[in-house]
């Protein structure tokens, strides 16, 4: 008597019939997301081939040289570190953390200022301050439902103002703060340390972050809660999931990886400057979206985001080698971003969902 099989004249008739008109068997298993992730790496490979072809046709030189490939990997490492953390924010359904650029900048200033007290205190202090920004972002967005883009954008500008006010619009250098040369050397090594004279520290950190991030996202209770929060915040809340805490954690993770990238960039340039992280917000979001993580939240993988970062890195490199200026590169990245978001939205809509 309790059977409800087959084409029952169901709730589909009353209410929002059209919303569930699609009965094709779309599975949410990990298989489809793996296929997507593989697709991202396929595209990355295509870009590599494109670079190679351009080199052989003589349009660009030295794309395949070891030094250039190393440059690509180094650039990917920085974008990737930011993107992995920020992807938790995207996954939580809160799009992106636009406060990343000045969080990175501030981390550099704080670290350089604290170098006089030793290397470890400086690193901890710098990361600690950036985590405070993450807590603030997560609290306001999670608790008060502020629009994440607007709020973090505002925080970005406020932080920029604070930096320029406190350091009277000046850049600062690691060796001018009375820090011991040994400590300065350690700071310089953050970016320059190479294992086996090849693998940079940022790359090692990125790989660690990807492995840990993928584990956290798929295997931990936090990851499962984050998926529910990103997919259906109200339903998550009414399942007893503390979505405010979950969202706050995702912003803290974004701030954490931004801080690491900020330290690396500052170490690279040997200067603390408010614009050190400029552009990393958009590069990271683009990597995340290209990597198959949809802006609607709850979908995608960290491995995919790594692939997205790879694509961004290779593309930037090719454009630079061709001689496309920075401004034109920005245009290309913007266009790609729009394209990917558009394709995503369209393919989801054709699956009968309009929530891209």
């Amino acid at each position, binding site marked *: 008597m309790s*059977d409800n099989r087959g084409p029952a004249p*169901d709730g589909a*008739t009353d*209410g929002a019939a059209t919303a*569930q008109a699609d009965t094709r068997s779309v599975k*949410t298993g990990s298989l489809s997301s793996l296929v997507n992730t593989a697709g991202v790496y396929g595209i990355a490979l295509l870009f590599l081939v494109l670079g190679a072809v351009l080199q052989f046709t003589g349009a660009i030189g030295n794309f395949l040289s070891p030094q250039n490939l190393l440059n690509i990997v180094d650039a990917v490492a920085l974008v990737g570190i930011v993107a992995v953390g920020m992807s938790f924010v995207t996954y939580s359904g809160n799009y992106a953390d636009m406060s990343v650029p000045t969080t990175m900048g501030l981390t550099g200033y704080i670290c350089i200022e604290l170098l006089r007290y030793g290397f470890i205190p400086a690193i901890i202090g710098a990361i600690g301050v950036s985590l405070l920004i993450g807590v603030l972002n997560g609290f306001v967005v999670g608790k008060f439902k502020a629009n994440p883009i607007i709020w973090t954008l505002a925080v970005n500008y406020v932080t920029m103002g604070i930096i320029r006010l406190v350091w009277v619009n000046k850049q600062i250098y690691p060796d001018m703060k009375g820090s011991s040369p040994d400590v300065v050397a350690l700071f310089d090594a953050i970016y320059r340390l190479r294992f086996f004279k090849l693998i940079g520290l940022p790359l090692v950190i990125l790989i660690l972050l990807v492995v840990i991030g993928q584990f956290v996202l798929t295997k931990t209770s936090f990851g499962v809660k984050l998926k529910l929060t990103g997919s259906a915040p109200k339903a998550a809340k009414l399942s007893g999931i503390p979505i405010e805490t979950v969202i706050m954690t995702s912003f803290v993770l974004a701030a954490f990886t931004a801080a690491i990238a900020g330290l690396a960039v500052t170490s690279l340039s040997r200067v603390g400057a408010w614009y050190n992280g400029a552009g990393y917000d958009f590069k990271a979001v683009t990597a995340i979206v290209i990597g198959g993580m949809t802006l609607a939240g709850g979908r995608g993988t960290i491995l995919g985001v790594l692939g997205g970062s790879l694509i961004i890195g290779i593309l930037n490199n090719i454009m630079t080698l061709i001689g496309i200026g920075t401004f034109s590169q920005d245009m290309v990245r913007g266009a790609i971003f729009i394209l990917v978001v558009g394709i995503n939205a369209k393919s989801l809509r054709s699956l009968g969902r309009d929530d891209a």
Partner: protein
Amino acid sequence: MNEESMGLALEMKGVRKSFPGTIAVDDVDFEVRPGEVHALVGENGAGKSTLMKMIAGSFDDYEGQIIVKGREVRLHTPTIAKKFGIGMIYQELSLARPISITENLLAGRLPRKGPFLDKRLAKRQARSLLEGVGLDLDPDLPIEDISQHEAQLVEIAKVLGNDPIILVMDEPTSALSREEVERLFAIIDQLRKRGIAIVYISHHLPEIFKIADRVTVMRDGKKIATKPIGEVTREEIVQMMVGRSVKEFYKRQERTIGEARLRVKGLSRFGFFHDVDFEARRGEILGICGLSGAGRTELARVLVGLDRADAGSIEVDGSPVRGSTMAEHLEQGIAYLTEDRKIEGLALRLAVDDNILSAIIDRLSSASVFSKSKGMQRVRALIGELSIYPPDPSRTVGNLSGGNQQKVLLAKWLASEPKVLILDEPTRGVDIGAKMTIHSSIEKLARQGCTVLLISSDLPELVGLTDRVMIMRKGHFTREMDYGECSEESLLLAANGDVGTGEGRAS
């Protein structure tokens, strides 16, 4: 066209509409005469809303003929339907709240004087439209400043402004008080005298007997019968709707009711409900009956920790419920199935298993590592018990039918093994098969000793399933009825504020 159909305002012949996997309306004939109130009844999911959406021009791919005033028409868009004189009044009001009555009434056809709005003429037109429904209001007032009942009448006035031949009303009284219903009926009566054909969709059978001339019953997408109202009884209509008698539908099994489990004392949330006292025991299904706005959902939200109480206490098994978050209340055994399935209840984009396990993530985790496989046995058992179709845990919930979605939602809370389960409209919008499954599952849960609080507007459900019903009205518990004294009529009367006389479980 023959003579007969010339005299009809609306005629539908052999209409059919299917959705993938479902035939929502199957070969239905339906007609309305000018000056007639034709009631359309059926269980949720019987196809009446789909039939009405067809008339409203919501579908461009229906089959069959629709004839308006003797002329065959294709109602493929809402604009075309409106042009042919079809007016729709939906359950949810379509008025824009911050703008004035005038602008709402005359939206799209505001009178102009040159390039400017002719304010005086607009106001005059609005006033005469309001008079048509017996309202004496300042047309400059924004909608948000008038009562729900007045807004309902403004909505009707707006539709009447388009001079409809056919007026479709979908549950127009669901948010109205008893006196307001009387006023609405007086207006419907006037419209009938003006020769407007009225299709009246309602769940309230007593209303239908009061206002309708004829009644058409639908079940499972098919028309069962059309009869003059004087030739049928309520029991016959109910029987046609459910396909079997209500008594047969709710076969009760013996349950033993144990000691007190949930004790609520002086619970208040100011502005919503006040001084609520009750006790619910192990194995008991306690119904909470009241009109929308009586404070039922608000009470549930406080019990489950979503909102804070301003006063009073909640005890489960003798110990006061600690904490102020839903997670804490859930840990102490109070679970809540929400009224809204699609947004508050389920993550439609996720799989069946993800949804079923979503309330017990922490319980399935050790040292923060989540073990899905630990929960899968429970998922499979629940899919089997509730006969969720297709029986595939990895299926996306949004692609299931409404009834199966509702079963997944129930499965999520069954998985949490609650001591007290609060169900808010657990069978709204589901087909009869799913409804029966859900009901037998609720009974089984109670037999296992769980305390069930059943909030429902479905009176047969309350009458058939509960041991006791508390009547809630305007934020207070006004009455309690046990199994013997409650009937659909007595509940309805009590919810409306009358002191009903128990007529037994006749329905």
